[in-house]
C-alpha cells in the first residue's frame, strides 16, 4: 500500500470522451473531475507501422481520488475508454503529497466507515 493517501488520475482520451471517463470513474466513488483540452502528437511513421490513426484532439481528465479506490477506477477506465475502445484512452496515476479543498471527501469517508462498523 502506498504511503500517499490521495492520488491524481490523469486520463488522456480522444475529444468528446470525457463524459464516459467521468461516468466510469463515478461508479467507483470519484466525486468530480476537471477536463483540460489538449492536442496529442504521435510519430507519423509509427502510426503507419501499427496501422492506427491518432486523433490529435484530446481531453485530459484529472480526477483526485483516495488511493484505496484508485485501482478500481483505473480498471473501470481501462474497460470503458481503454486503447482498444473508440476513446483510445491512457490512464495513469501520480501520488499526491498533500491536499486541501476536499473536506467533504474525508467527512463522507468517515461516515462510511462508521456505518460499516455498526
Amino acid at each position, binding site marked *: 500500500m502506498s504511503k500517499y493517501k*490521495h492520488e*491524481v488520475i490523469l486520463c488522456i482520451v480522444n475529444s468528446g470522451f*470525457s*463524459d464516459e471517463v*467521468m461516468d466510469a470513474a463515478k461508479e467507483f466513488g470519484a466525486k*468530480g*473531475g*476537471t*477536463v*483540460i*483540452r489538449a492536442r496529442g502528437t504521435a510519430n507519423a511513421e509509427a502510426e503507419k507501422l501499427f496501422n492506427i490513426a491518432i486523433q490529435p484532439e484530446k481531453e*485530459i*481528465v*484529472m480526477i*483526485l481520488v483516495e488511493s484505496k479506490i484508485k485501482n478500481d477506477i483505473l480498471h473501470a477506465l481501462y474497460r470503458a475508454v481503454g486503447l482498444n475502445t473508440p476513446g483510445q484512452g491512457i490512464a495513469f496515476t*501520480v*501520488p*499526491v*503529497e*498533500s*491536499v*486541501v*479543498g*476536499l*473536506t467533504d471527501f*474525508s*467527512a463522507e469517508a468517515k461516515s462510511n466507515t462508521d456505518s460499516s462498523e455498526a
Partner: protein
Amino acid sequence: MARFKISKAKDVKEEKTSMSSPKKLQLLITVVNKQKTEYFVDMLYNFEINLQTVLSGHGTADDHIKSLLGLTDNEKSIIISAIRRDRANEALAFLDEKFRTVKGGKGIAFTLPVSSTIGVAIYQFLSNTFNGGQR
C-alpha cells in the same frame, strides 16, 4: 470538518537543519473558478513561487439540466506552480483558508513530488535560491 494543519513540526526541523542541501521542489496544482484565476495567481507569488502556468479546463458538471440551462458556471483554471517544498504546506494552508472564506473561491489544491530537474539556473529560479544558500 478536518482543518488542514500547517506542516508537521518534524518536516520544518529537517528543512532547517539541512540549510546547505538543495531545497526540494514540488508542483502545486490549484483548480479554481476561472474568474478567480488572477486572484489566486497573484496570491501564490507570495510563497517564493517564480513560475506559474495556467491551463483552462472545465469541471464535470454534476447537474446536467442546470448546465444545459447555463445556470452553472463550470469554467475552471488549473494553476501549476513550482514551489519549494518547505513553503508548500504554508501555501496549502493559505489556499485552504481562501477556499473556505472567499465567495466563489471554492477550489482544490494538491502538491505532487518532483523527482528531478536539470540546469542550475533553472533550479535556482524555481526554488528561489541563489548561490546555493538562503536568499
